[in-house]
């Protein structure tokens, strides 16, 4: 028997304070697939939301969080695309700029922390696709999602910039599509695949942010796609939680079911919608369940 691979979960800010459906569905399916999730005390914001204000602060916060995981000698599982970029970028800077690494570590000493840059950082998509593997996922499928046309939204922060190392391809990411096929669904691509969700503008231009969201959802709706999966709490907040409002910005009545990828996987595994937090999705997810039953 091999030891169960352990990861420290880095929850970030948005998922553990409001995007509970993502966390619930992750905590349901990941352990089922043979990965142990370890909760650590003391994490803070990853720093990415502060990048426009002060990039040094971003770097400091990222390094601080990685240092906490390093203390317990654990690799890090980061479900948020934005956090995943911040931590990966910190790793990249530490690798290429020893002087900056020294300065940041000097500051971290105040909290008795230090980061030597040896943690592996994974996101939901590569954890599922690369580390758990499609075969294992397939073995757990009890209710294949036959005939469901699903489009994947990866999120900008997950796919770019490839220069610092991202878990999926920057122009033609395919890992979510492969997972969708493994659970019996029909991955469906659309020209808007790489379009931004708009969330980064929430802070200072919320109306424009929603317009961006509305434009993408409207395009998806017009193409007869049954639903969309996403893998970032920011994207999901826009596409699911704010879908009605986003519709108003483009003068359209939007009704696109939007699920977190682990929620859809959980449904294919035959888990109860309650356990997967489906009650927290505000987009019309019942449309998807009806299709599935039909």
């Amino acid at each position: 028997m091999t030891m169960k691979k352990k990861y420290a979960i880095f929850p970030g800010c948005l998922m553990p304070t409001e995007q509970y459906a993502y966390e619930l569905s992750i905590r349901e399916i990941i352990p089922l697939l043979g990965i142990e999730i370890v909760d650590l005390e003391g994490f803070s914001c990853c720093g990415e939301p502060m990048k426009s204000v002060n990039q040094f602060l971003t770097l400091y916060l990222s390094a601080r969080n990685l240092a906490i995981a390093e203390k317990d000698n654990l690799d890090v599982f980061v479900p948020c695309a934005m956090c995943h970029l911040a931590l990966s970028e910190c790793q990249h800077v530490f690798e290429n700029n020893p002087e900056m690494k020294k300065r940041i570590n000097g500051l971290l000493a105040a909290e008795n922390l230090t980061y030597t840059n040896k943690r592996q950082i994974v996101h939901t998509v590569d954890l599922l696709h690369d580390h758990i593997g499609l075969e294992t996922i397939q073995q757990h499928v009890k209710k294949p999602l036959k005939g469901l046309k699903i489009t994947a939204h990866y999120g900008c922060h997950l796919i770019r910039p490839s220069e610092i190392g991202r878990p999926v391809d920057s122009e033609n990411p395919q890992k979510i599509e492969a997972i969708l096929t493994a659970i019996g669904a029909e991955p469906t691509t659309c020209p808007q695949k790489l379009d931004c969700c708009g969330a980064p503008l929430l802070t200072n231009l919320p109306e424009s942010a929603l317009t961006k969201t509305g434009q993408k959802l409207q395009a998806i709706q017009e193409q007869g796609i049954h639903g969309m999966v996403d893998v970032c709490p920011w994207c999901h907040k826009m596409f699911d939680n704010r879908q009605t409002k986003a519709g108003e910005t483009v003068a359209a009545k939007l009704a696109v079911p939007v699920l977190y990828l682990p929620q859809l996987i959980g449904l294919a595994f035959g888990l109860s919608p309650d356990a997967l937090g489906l009650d927290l999705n505000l987009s019309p997810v019942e449309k998807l369940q009806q299709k599935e039953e039909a």
Partner: protein
Amino acid sequence: MTIVDLTSMGEPQTDLKKELNARLTKLQDEISDFCFQCGKCTSGCEAHKLLELEPHKIVALLKRGLLNELVNSDIIWTCMSCMKCRERCPQRVAPVDILFGLKNMAVASGKEIPGKYTGMLQSILSMGLIQDIQQATTRTNKTVKRDELGLPPLSKPVDVTKFHAGIMKIAMDKV
């Protein structure tokens, strides 16, 4: 240095300003030289259609030394940081990073920070995260919090005073 100084990033931050200035000058002198104005960045820019951000023009203006004009303009705050410009630039200029530098410069110069950035920063300073636990609304209009859903306690800095001191050092020690 108080919280107010850090959140407003006001005048006391001369060191940070100097460092940012040096970085931007470097970008201006070296990086923007590589740009041959192909416009690939602008053609893919997420903020272009909606808000008329033109990354190739930002690079051109920087090259011409219009640093103050850029720092004081609202256009730099329309970037959605989708990073397509950085990904696709044939010359590796990365307009998105120039924009981050310009926004940081605007903040360090004491310019008013737009939107909710100040609130988020204050929240990070006081409890470590951009927001505390929120009530989520269900499809049936019930409200729930994470403990009611059986989720483990929220991970956040245990010793906030120590955490706070660490962040304050960034402003004081000119990281």
